[in-house]
């Protein structure tokens, strides 16, 4: 295999003329490549969901007293145990499906349920793109909802002014709460995970306090509950007989807006650059501190808007602990959606459906609502640890790579 190197140029003469010719520079067609990538990207989450449903089914069976009894006499009547189990799983999941997607009313419930999940999920996703882990969605949505509630209770205005004003107030409230986290990080280097958790507690207490003041407490009541929001700030339902309020449309628009912001604007470019390599961003002249504050402000605003859609939509009263759990579900679904706006919408719809269906499932079967939270948790577990799914389904590693990036980012900065 010894060819004197001085002869080599003659051996491959055409190479030198065209630097872009030759095997190493083949191109993959853009659209086909993109679709392939998308399909491959979906495999991970879909398998995770499937696995979670299967494990969920086992848990349903083995927590149900009657079926357990049947399994106790497995050796005398193996058929009964299997049939009972199958029945239970089938009726439970059927009820889950029926009451989330099975009818127009069920579908409406799902969409309403997913609205705040999508918005707060976008908040987590956006902060993540900017290199931060926003655990503070719970606090931000509470403060946002409080600001909106204050507008709703205090003023008496026509709907065209009152509703937009309340929405804007919700965004600002959340933005301030998120902005504080960004400011502390930019100024003092305080880790956003710590400060945003702390601010969650502060927000919860602030809400308790507010509900004890005359401004927020419902007149004549001593328990912590606000008056109902007036009709002029309530989100209208654009389609008659389909009980989905405007918030859902807003959430979809905002998701598109978040995508546009991240991918098509200089601000989004900066956010992503700071998130991916802050040193290089600084070298490139981007204000890293300003971008950090701005990113957390925007993220907070999205969470605030999420809280506001709950208040002006399905649950028009402030109470203690106002939907703080949405803030945590949002972290999970941003992980499932791989921190991309479209992924968050998909994951938000899934979680919305699971949560909307869970009530119906509990009513129709003996399966408790809590099983849904177990399934949610399992989905996240399988997305975060793709090795499990990989082993179970024998999928090649390369196809399940991307999910790791999000979970590996846990407090990485």
């Amino acid at each position, binding site marked *: 295999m010894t060819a004197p190197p001085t002869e080599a140029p003659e051996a*491959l003469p055409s190479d030198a003329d065209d630097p872009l010719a030759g095997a190493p520079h083949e191109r993959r067609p853009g659209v086909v490549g993109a679709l392939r990538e998308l399909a491959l990207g979906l495999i991970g989450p879909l398998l995770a969901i499937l696995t979670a449903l299967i494990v969920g089914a086992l848990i349903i069976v083995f927590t149900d007293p009657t079926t357990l009894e049947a399994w106790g006499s497995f050796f005398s009547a193996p058929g009964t145990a299997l049939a009972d189990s199958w029945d239970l799983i089938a009726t439970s999941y059927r009820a889950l499906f029926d009451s989330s997607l099975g009818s127009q009313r069920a579908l409406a419930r799902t969409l309403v349920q997913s609205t705040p999940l999508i918005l707060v999920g976008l908040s987590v996703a956006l902060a993540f793109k900017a290199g931060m882990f926003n655990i503070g969605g719970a606090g931000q949505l509470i403060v946002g909802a409080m600001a909106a509630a204050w507008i709703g209770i205090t003023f008496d205005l026509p709907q065209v002014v009152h509703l937009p004003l309340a929405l804007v107030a919700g965004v600002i409230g959340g933005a301030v709460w998120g902005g504080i986290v960004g400011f502390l990080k930019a100024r003092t280097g305080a880790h956003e995970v710590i400060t945003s958790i702390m601010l969650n507690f502060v927000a919860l207490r602030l809400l308790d306090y507010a509900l004890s003041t005359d401004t927020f407490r419902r007149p004549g009541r001593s328990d912590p509950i606000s008056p109902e929001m007036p009709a002029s700030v309530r989100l209208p339902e654009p389609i008659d007989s389909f009980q989905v309020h405007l918030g859902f449309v807003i959430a979809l628009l905002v998701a598109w807006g978040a995508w546009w912001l991240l991918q098509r604007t200089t601000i989004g470019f900066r956010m992503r650059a700071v998130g991916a390599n802050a040193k290089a961003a600084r070298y490139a002249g981007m204000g890293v501190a300003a971008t950090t504050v701005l990113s957390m402000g925007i993220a907070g605003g999205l969470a605030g808007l999420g809280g506001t859609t709950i208040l002006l939509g399905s649950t028009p009263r402030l109470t203690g602990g106002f939907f703080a759990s949405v803030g945590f579900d949002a972290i999970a679904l941003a992980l499932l959606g791989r921190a991309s706006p479209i992924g968050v919408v998909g994951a938000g719809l899934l979680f919305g459906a699971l949560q909307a269906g869970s009530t119906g499932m509990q009513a129709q079967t003996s399966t408790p609502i809590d099983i849904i939270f177990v399934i949610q948790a399992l989905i996240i577990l399988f997305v975060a640890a793709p090795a499990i799914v990989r082993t179970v389904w024998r999928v090649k590693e390369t196809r399940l790579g991307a999910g790791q990036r999000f979970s590996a980012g846990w407090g990485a900065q």
Partner: protein
Amino acid sequence: MRVELRGITKRFPGVVANEDVNLVVEPGQVHALLGENGAGKSTLMNVLFGLYRQTEGEVLLDGVPASFSSPADAIDAGIGMVHQHFMLVPVFTVAENVMLGVEPTSAPGVLDRDAARRRVLELSARHGLDVDPDAMVEDLPVGVQQRVEILKALYREADCLILDEPTAVLTPSEIDDMLEIIRRLADEGRSVIFISHKLREVRAIADTITILRRGRVVGTTTPDESDEQELATAMVGRDVQLVVDRSAASPTDVVLRVSDLRVRDERDQLAVADVSFDVRAGEIVAIAGVQGNGQSELVSAIVGLRRPTAGRVELDGTDVTGANPARMVELGVAHVPEDRQRDGLISSFPVSDNLVLNLTGRSPYSRGIRMDRRAIRENAERLVQDFDIRTSSIDAAVGTLSGGNQQKVIVGREMSHTERLLVLSQPTRGLDVGSIQYIHHRIVQARDQGLAVLLNSSELDEVLALADRVIVMYRGGVIGEVSGEEATRDSVGMLMAGARA
């Protein structure tokens, strides 16, 4: 250990990085791999080290087929690798880094630090590595960090050592030490694979030289059979001129004026002490010096990445002391940073975005806050062509490019927007001879178009080839200045070593 690669092919989506590569490395030999940027050298070595799995072909160790699914397997089989980009934990000590992954224990789960320290001391003495096991890695100069990487491999009893561009970041005297160490390792019976773009050192150290081009082996030779010119021609596939053509400079107005500048480094030590000089339009001024004599801090202060504690920086007569990097870009200053992975690129972003990383705020790349994707793509297509950046597409993440091609992305970007002053720190580090020639040509061209060029390079050949004036830094101050005609290896080398002219 005798290492044989047989018919290795490695494909990435859209790229064939290695095609049917055959290679035999005999024990006791230093086998050099030569090839252009993106020829597939690192990829081939990553296959041998178990980081990538080959698409086709097999690896034989002492004649026995071996199959690695991870570097751990390769290490077990006696292969050690020092990567092009170091893989050390900066906040760990040398001993901790070396034992990482194979920690000795005194009882189950209890680290035996003393054993590790002793082993490090012993190895370092035996191979003349001269490393302090208790030093914190982040405090060490790159040359020593490099030796820590080698220690890591030796600690794991590597019988075959892969060194991917180990000398790229070293100073001339460190390179001499390194070559000596490599020779000794080979003489003890190890097989060594050595990758470098510096033909002189390849000829000095190698027993056998294999040349890769576009993923294929195009020839095997020895230092006695081929001189530098022949090696360069074989690598690139066309004649390469190793000297730069350039006429005398005709400098005009002062563009950059630095007066009495003082700069402190991260540890608050005075790194630059009262430095003053000018750079005029139409000239190339080189800052020479052994790395670590204040050049990096000086450059950071000029381009706005570090605030000087005293003194002035003027651009075209305007005071820009302490201006931020964005402002400097606006004023027409471009800067190729020294550490490309850390400062110059965002490795997960596509090539196209990296080619406008610090330019997105201006037209034609954006209007208002809206980025113009089309303009960004057109810019990328053009620069990829001009600078011969080897990538599967402008949408590929820049991190998937070979080291030299990543460097070309930065140089291309910065040279595309300079209006007044071009500041270059180690601009051709890791580039192959053909690319160096092209970039040098572009630098001279930029000068002739009336730009002021400030070159910070520890590569003496580069300084001598390009500079119209050479400023030599020593211990934070300017120890002397030599004109381009008078500059020789000796005259500049003496000053670099601290001997006043």
